[in-house]
């Protein structure tokens, strides 16, 4: 059923954007964390999004002779990666227990402004997916009205 497919696709968008918001929140929460999971300063994480392969239904119709090329199953989270390219911030604070011999502390490479921008972008994309979902729901219920 084609409209249920639309709902699933929008749902995949909602999941992906919510995960982006979660990861951004984690980055912000750990903006001052000098002891991460590996004992080093926390490194910001980023979500890698990928176009999802076609749904089961789409693959089936393609296999049965329909031309299902280019069909999409929405979006898929390929993984959450650590940003190891942006350098850690070095702050002079000799009193800090994690300071090195020169008195410098490695602070996380989290930039609050970047995180806030990511948060807004994820939020807006989430809203767009919600709108698409509502529209699909409305279209489906109108079509069901044909039976009345």
């Amino acid at each position, binding site marked *: 059923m084609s409209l249920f497919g639309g709902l699933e696709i929008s749902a*995949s968008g909602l999941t992906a954007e919510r995960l982006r918001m979660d990861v951004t929140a984690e980055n912000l929460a750990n903006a001052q964390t000098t002891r991460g999971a590996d004992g080093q300063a926390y490194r910001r994480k980023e979500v890698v999004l990928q176009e999802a392969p076609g749904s089961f239904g789409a693959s089936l119709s393609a296999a049965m002779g329909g031309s299902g090329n*280019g069909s999409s199953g929405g979006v898929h989270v390929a993984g959450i990666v650590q940003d190891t390219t942006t350098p850690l911030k070095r702050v002079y604070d000799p009193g800090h227990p994690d300071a090195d011999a020169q008195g410098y502390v490695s602070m996380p490479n989290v930039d609050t402004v970047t995180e806030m921008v990511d948060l807004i972008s994820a939020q807006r994309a989430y809203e767009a997916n919600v709108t698409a979902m509502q529209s699909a729901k409305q279209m489906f219920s109108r079509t069901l009205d044909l039976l009345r």
Partner: protein
Amino acid sequence: MLFDTTQLALERAIEGAGKRHEALAANIANANTPGYQRVDVDFHGALQAAMGGDEDSNTALEGLSFSPAKDASAGATRADGSTVDIDSESAKLAANALEQQAAVQVAHARLGILKAAMGVSS
């Protein structure tokens, strides 16, 4: 005949709009996917070809299948090479939903006429 070419065309248009909604929803879902190429379903073109071809319209409409295709004409709108513009996708989605509604309403009215002729109170 109970179900004529117009009714069949309306049904196929409803189906096509559903498929197009799926494609546009996929574009919105991938709004933040780097390098994503937008997809679209040209169901108007498919319907027009089916109804204007040499073949019998009914047969052509019955055998019609709508499939999403990558939109190669769209230029990159983002630095990462993605061709999705979320505003235009949202606008297309809204227009498509209205179009589907219009087709449903006409189909509904036509079925209502049939019902009246058959003496079924609706």
